[in-house]
C-alpha cells in the first residue's frame, strides 16, 4: 500500500522522503531562477528583511558592546605602547601635513586651471551602521541599517573613511546588503593613480587572513608602477564612481605571459573592524542613460 494513502481517522502527514523530494525540486527551481534572473530576490528580501533587520540592529548593539569590552581588556597593554609610537608619529605627520598643505594649495590652483572638480570629496554621502555580517565564514558581505526608505539603491558605492568598501547588491525598505571588494567573488576595475594604468582588483579568501587583496591584468610595459602606488577605482568601471581610493600596491609580479602583471594590494579600509560606513548616494552614469 502506498504510504501516502490516508488511513481512516489518521491525521494526514507527508512522509519525509516525499517532502525531501518536493523541497529539493523547489530549491533547484529557486537556484535556477535566482541564478539567471533577479525578480524573485526583491519580494523575498523585502519580507524577510523587514522582519529580521530591526531585531538584528538591536542584538547587534548588544554584541558590539560585549566585543568592545573584551577587546578593551586585551588591548590596554598594546594600546600604551601604540600610544607612545603614535605620539612620535604625530610629530612626523604634522611636518608632512604642512608640506602637503603647500602641495594642496598648488593642486587647487592647477585644478581650477583644468576645471577638474569631480573629486569624491564632493560626492553626496549618507552614513549607515553595520548591523549584521554574513552567517558563514566564506564570504564577506554585511547588512547596513539604511534602505530604500532612505533613498538607497542597488549598485550605490559604499566607503569607510577615505577608502572603498564595496557596493550595495540588495535593498530592502530599512536595510541593504553590501558586497565588499574583498569578497571572494568580487572583481573591481581599478587604476594606478600615478600612471593611469588599468587593472582588475579581485577579492580572495586565501589572502583575507593577511589583510590583503590581489590584482591582475595590469599592463605596464614601461615598468613605471612600483610598490606603494595608490590604486583608485577606474573611469571605465560600470559600477564604481571614478577616483575612490582602494589601497596601495604591496607587491608586483610579472605574469608568465610576460605581458601583464599581477600582485597584492593593501586595502585602505580596515575590513576587520568596520562599524560605520558611508554610502555614496550617486550612481555611476552608464552608457545609454540620458543623464
Amino acid at each position: 500500500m502506498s504510504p501516502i494513502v490516508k488511513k481512516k481517522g489518521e491525521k494526514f502527514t507527508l512522509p519525509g522522503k516525499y517532502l525531501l523530494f518536493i523541497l529539493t525540486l523547489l530549491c533547484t527551481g529557486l537556484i535556477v531562477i535566482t541564478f539567471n534572473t533577479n525578480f524573485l530576490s526583491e519580494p523575498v528580501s523585502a519580507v524577510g528583511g523587514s522582519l529580521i533587520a530591526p531585531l538584528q540592529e538591536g542584538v547587534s548593539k548588544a554584541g558590539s558592546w560585549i566585543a568592545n569590552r573584551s577587546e578593551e581588556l586585551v588591548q590596554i597593554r598594546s594600546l600604551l605602547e601604540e600610544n607612545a609610537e603614535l605620539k612620535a608619529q604625530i610629530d612626523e605627520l604634522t611636518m608632512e601635513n604642512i608640506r602637503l598643505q603647500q602641495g594642496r594649495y598648488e593642486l587647487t590652483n592647477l585644478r581650477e586651471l583644468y576645471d577638474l572638480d569631480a573629486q569624491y570629496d564632493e560626492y553626496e554621502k549618507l552614513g549607515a551602521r553595520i548591523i549584521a555580517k554574513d552567517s558563514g565564514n566564506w564570504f564577506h558581505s554585511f547588512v547596513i541599517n539604511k534602505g530604500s526608505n532612505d533613498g538607497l539603491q542597488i549598485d550605490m558605492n559604499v566607503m569607510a573613511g577615505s577608502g572603498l568598501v564595496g557596493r550595495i547588491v540588495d535593498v530592502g525598505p530599512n536595510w541593504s546588503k553590501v558586497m565588499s571588494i574583498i569578497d571572494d567573488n568580487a572583481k573591481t576595475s581599478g587604476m594606478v593613480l600615478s600612471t593611469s594604468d588599468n587593472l582588475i582588483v579581485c577579492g580572495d579568501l586565501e589572502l583575507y587572513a593577511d589583510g590583503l587583496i590581489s590584482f591582475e591584468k595590469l599592463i605596464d610595459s614601461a615598468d613605471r608602477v612600483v610598490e606603494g602606488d595608490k590604486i583608485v577605482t577606474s573611469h571605465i568601471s560600470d559600477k564604481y564612481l571614478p577616483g575612490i581610493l582602494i589601497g596601495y600596491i604591496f607587491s608586483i609580479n610579472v605574469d608568465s605571459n610576460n605581458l601583464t602583471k599581477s600582485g597584492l594590494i593593501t586595502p585602505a579600509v580596515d575590513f576587520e573592524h568596520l562599524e560605520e560606513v558611508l554610502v555614496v548616494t550617486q550612481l555611476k552614469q552608464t552608457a545609454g542613460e540620458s543623464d
Partner: protein
Amino acid sequence: MRRFIVSVFMIVICFLFQTTVFQGIDFGGIVPNLMIVLTASFGFMRGERTGLIMGFACGFLADVFFGNVLGLNAMIYMYIGYANGKFNRIFYQEDIKLPLGLILLSDLAYGFLYYITLFLMRGRFNIGYYFMHIILPEVVYTILVTLLLYPLVLWINKKLEELEKRSARKFV
C-alpha cells in the same frame, strides 16, 4: 502549534546571534555555525521530517540575507537535517557522544558541500587551505558552542514533549 512557534523562535534567535553577537566574539574571523547545531539536533531528536523542515527553514533564512542564489543553503541544510534524522533510532537523551559526533560530521559536511558548490565550481582548487583555515576552525568552534547550546536545545525539546503528553492525556 506550540512546537511550531518555539521552533521558529529558536531559528530566529540562532540566526540573530550568529550574524551579530558572534561576529563580535569571533576567533580569527571564524564564527560558529549555530544553525547547523539546531538542524542536526532536531534531526536526530525528532526524526527525518522535522530535521529536513528545520534545515530548510534555517538555510532559507541564510539565503534570503546572504546567499548569492536563493535555495542553495536551504538545500544543503535540508539534506543534513534529513541525514541526521536517520540516526533518530539509535539516539538516547543520556548519551552526549552521538550528538557531538553527528554535529561535528554535519558541520564538516556543510563545509565541504559549500566549498564544492561555491568555490570548486569557480576554479578555486586549493582545498587544503580552505580546510585548514575555514572548515576546521569552524568545526572546532561549533563543537565548543555545541557543549553549551545542545543541553539547552535538549531541555526545550524535553519540556515540549512533556507538555504534549500532558495535553494529549487531557483530551482522551
